[in-house]
């Protein structure tokens, strides 16, 4: 973890309430896909944890959904403004376990961290499939971006207005060797219930610090309470004991 001040180079809408922010600064602390940064915003006491979509050559990409006053404030920030973040937080995904045909499962604003993961897996020569789910056609983002990396991409929408009708669990390929999932809890629990293969889940919780000291974001695992911010946010399927 390091405390770094970045400079905003882009802050643009991808859909009605999802935006992409690009920032210049030192990204060296982000060593794995699935890590996050904790963003300090003027006028708000607590930082906002945001997953890393991409981090390369001193450019940090964050995709965030405007869900409250803090992210609303973030959406009004302009190119050239500075943003202080705690960077390199969390464990991230373990790409060594992927097998030959890893499957990425993303729901809504859970899609972004899978982008850096796809890049890392493709760089290892893996055959990567991504199934990304949204509520409706107007909320779809990053289909083309995943495709241009070289993934096979399937989009699902809950209302059937775009791609396959249903949820990501309605479009699971049969030959995947391992999965990496990020999205809302009902989606993660459906993935947990409907997959025979092993995989990893990225979890979310309201956080105080983001670096493991306030123990505000604890979750239950087979080996006891774990801090989502520090021991996670990524947990292996076998570590979780969800009642489905």
């Amino acid at each position, binding site marked *: 973890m390091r405390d770094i001040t970045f400079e905003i180079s882009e802050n643009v809408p991808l859909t009605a309430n999802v935006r992409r922010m690009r920032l210049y600064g030192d990204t060296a602390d982000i060593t794995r896909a699935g890590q996050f940064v904790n963003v300090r915003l003027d006028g708000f006491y607590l930082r906002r944890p945001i997953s890393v979509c991409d981090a390369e050559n001193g450019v940090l990409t964050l995709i965030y959904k405007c869900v409250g006053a803090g992210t609303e404030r973030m959406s009004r920030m302009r190119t050239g403004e500075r943003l202080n973040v*705690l960077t390199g937080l969390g464990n991230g995904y373990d790409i060594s376990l992927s097998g030959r045909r890893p499957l990425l499962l993303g729901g809504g604003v859970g899609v972004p961290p899978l982008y850096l993961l796809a890049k890392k897996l493709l760089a290892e020569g893996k055959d990567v499939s991504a199934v990304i789910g949204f509520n409706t056609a107007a909320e779809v983002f990053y289909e083309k971006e995943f495709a241009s990396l070289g993934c096979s991409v399937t989009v699902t929408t809950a209302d059937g207005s775009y791609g396959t009708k249903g949820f990501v669990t309605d479009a699971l390929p049969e030959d995947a060797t391992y999965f990496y999932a990020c999205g809302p809890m009902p989606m993660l629990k459906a993935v947990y219930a409907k997959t025979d293969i092993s995989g990893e889940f990225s979890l979310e919780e*309201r956080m*105080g610090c983001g670096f493991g000291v*306030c*123990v*505000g*974001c604890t979750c239950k695992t087979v080996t006891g309470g774990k801090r989502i911010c520090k021991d996670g946010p990524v947990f292996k399927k076998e570590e979780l004991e969800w009642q489905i």
Partner: protein
Amino acid sequence: MADLSVELCGIKLDNPVIPASGTFGFGAEFAELYDINVLGTFSFKGTTRQPRFGNPTPRIAECPAGMLNSVGLQNPGVEHVIAEELPRMKTYFCKPVMANVSGFSVEDYAYTCALLDAQDQIGWIELNVSCPNVHGGGMSFGTDPEAAAGVVRAVKAITKKPIIVKLSPNVTDIVAVALACEKAGADGISLINTLLGMRIDLKTRRPVLANNTGGLSGPAVFPVALRMVWQVAHAVDIPVVGMGGVSSADDMIEMMLAGATAVEVGAANLVDPYACRDIINELPETMRKYKIEKLSDIIKGANSWEKTL
């Protein structure tokens, strides 16, 4: 050369800055960022007799100038702390540390304190009396002067290290609780613990915290904390450790003027992991600004106005 040192219950501190329990873990995460031996000391994560998972999540909610938490004393239990955390702590912290202890019965407190009292690394024991008393209908020990005094008496009878009682501000008369603890043998008083509060999510119409209510900390509580430190410091003859919303060297000095011998810094560590290091670095310049040569000279140094009724 500015003199930042103070003495707390017979132990010298290089400076009065003490990260507060629950905001600093056992120090390891901060030791990765800076040499935490620059601190006066720190108060480690509240420890109980048994390991505790704590409350359900969400446990954190934001507030104007502060935050609520309902962590519920998650900790690995005193045996684990002694077997694992204290030996590891030796590798990055070489000063006497403050052990923060919670319990749900007088026997719990006595058991945990007896084990920690035997540990050389520990300088002081800070008793958190804000927990519910399972034998007293779940009412917090800290809301009843007699119950608080009962804990202090039981712990004092079996320990040698200085006992500092951390008081709850959720009472009508905090001075009465402080005086009862002093009479029962407490070596010091620390205050304030968090103030009980809540937030409701307007979309779901449910409390944000899964525990419904939680403890408020951060700059929002500073004036309340300062007032209580002032009241208690002017009533007792034992040292007072002030805390509640302290985030800067100026806040430190204000707390000391109100009566604090040392000052704990809590929520600030969570939003800025360098907060305590920066406060220590700022103190000499801040002391120059207010013409303070020796920090210990200003303890309880604020002169009150005459009051007319």
